[in-house]
């Protein structure tokens, strides 16, 4: 399988602040990867480096075996869609769509026009006049229709309402199945788009916290809920990823599943139930550095 994206010891500094450090991962073949992380963990910076818009401070990065910064081949085969994307103010949406085939060989004009109609975007509108959600919808359509081998979406669904978001996910999946390619999506709505993803690349404080397939991620942790003292007894010796005190002296604990071999029957007898941990929650727990929860702020 061809290595599409490869990063080794990637580092990016903005003045003295390290936005990315020691980033090493590779993405092979055609798949949809979710780039997940809290605000300010370097997702956008990483995508911008991959798209060749920003140069890394150190380390190596290759897209389709080429260094992306200032590279025409990478530019012709990749695109980064984000909500800061802009087009000339004098261009109507139709003008943008008309120019696209000059740049993108695989541009699907029919798909772009049909999606524009479906999402009720007037081709005569100006990009700068669109609302945030509509602008992002158009940007998404543009990115999808380019059919670039490496398509990157940075928070593509910001500002979209739920119905549009669902349609966008479906459009992405259908187009991906028809024309498989490497897609990276960064988003805060992991639960919503979990069904799309094959891989998760989790960033935490500028570092790769985890890079696993979604199936592996689901097996990464287990949740136990039951009487606090019993849960604590069972959790002893395991790595606790998250703990939450519930009403009625109940405790919910998420443990790293590695090496966890519980006797399920015995647990049930002692009043403990297994709670599946969603990928979204797990990512949240893995990147949570705060002590306690928001409730503790309001407790005396």
């Amino acid at each position, binding site marked *: 399988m061809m290595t599409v994206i490869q990063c080794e010891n990637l580092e990016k500094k903005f003045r003295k602040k390290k936005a990315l450090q020691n980033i090493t991962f590779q993405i092979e073949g055609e798949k949809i990867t979710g780039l997940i992380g809290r605000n300010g963990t370097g997702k*956008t910076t990483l995508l911008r480096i991959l798209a060749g818009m920003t140069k890394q401070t150190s380390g190596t990065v290759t897209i389709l075996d080429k260094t992306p910064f200032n590279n025409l081949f990478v530019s012709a085969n990749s695109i980064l869609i984000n909500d800061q994307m802009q087009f000339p103010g004098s261009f109507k949406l139709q003008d943008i769509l008309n*120019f696209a085939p000059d740049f993108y060989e695989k541009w699907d004009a029919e798909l772009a026009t049909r999606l524009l109609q479906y999402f009720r975007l007037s081709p005569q509108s100006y990009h700068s006049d669109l609302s945030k959600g509509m602008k992002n919808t158009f940007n998404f359509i*543009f990115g999808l229709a380019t059919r670039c081998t490496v398509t990157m979406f940075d928070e593509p669904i910001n500002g979209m309402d739920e119905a549009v978001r669902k349609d966008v996910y479906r459009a992405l999946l259908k187009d991906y199945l028809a024309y498989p390619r490497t897609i990276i999506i960064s988003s805060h709505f992991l639960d919503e788009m979990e069904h799309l993803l094959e891989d998760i690349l989790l960033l935490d404080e500028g570092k790769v916290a985890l890079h696993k397939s979604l199936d592996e991620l689901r097996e990464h942790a287990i949740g136990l809920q039951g009487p606090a003292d019993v849960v604590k007894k069972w959790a002893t010796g395991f790595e606790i990823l998250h703990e939450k005190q519930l009403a009625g002296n109940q405790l919910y604990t998420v443990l790293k599943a590695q090496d966890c071999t519980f006797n399920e029957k015995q647990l049930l007898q002692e009043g403990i139930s297994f709670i599946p941990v969603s990928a979204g929650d797990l990512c949240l727990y893995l990147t949570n550095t705060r002590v306690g929860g928001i409730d503790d702020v309001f407790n005396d």
Partner: protein
Amino acid sequence: MMFLTTKSFAETLQAQVKFKLHAYLSMVVYLIILQVAGMLLFLLLGSANMSSSSDLVEMEFYVFTPKPMLILSSLWAFYVGKLMTRHDQRADIMPFVTTRTLSSIADVVVLGLLAIFTGITVMLSIYVVRIIVMLKPNQNIISGENMVNAPGIFIENIMTFIVFILLMTAIGYFFGMLTQQSKLWIFFIVAVSVLMLCSAFGQQVLLVTIKLAKSVPLPLLGTPVIASSILFVLATLLANKLEVRG
């Protein structure tokens, strides 16, 4: 199996020039407005006048030169050159296939084409003024070379205008790229300019530079063409370093 696209530099440059020309059409509209304003100034003020009268005859002579239009067009050229380096303008091309070098070369081509358009329109606007003057009662054009009786001078004038406008775009473009690197360059350039003009040493340096430029065995337009080329090359090198945030 992955199907990868290989775009040649030339075809991408062509697409970018087409794209950028379309994007800067509004700038051409501003140019036309400026040129109309220049023509009005031209008609109202002229460049110089003198009058002579005897008992029965009164004559007034107006000398018209295209200076107002040239000055306004030059300011426009400087502005457009600088505008192209602005962060938002550079970001406009980012959703499309590009590299910094390619985008910068496309900018230079577009500025060159705009300079040709501007040079020709400045020259032709003189003819518009002539027609208006001829339409006025009791006014006649006494002399003046035109494209029919002196095609050589006409072409020479157009070339001069084009080269001068091109130089202005190059200065604007280079200045813009410098200030994109750091705003401190603005203060530095202003400070150096003031020092050069106000100090005896600075004036001496300027005079020597002008003498040197004159002594270079080049055709009249060679020096501004070379100066423009150097500025464009330097600006392109600077553009290569710039990161475009998205």
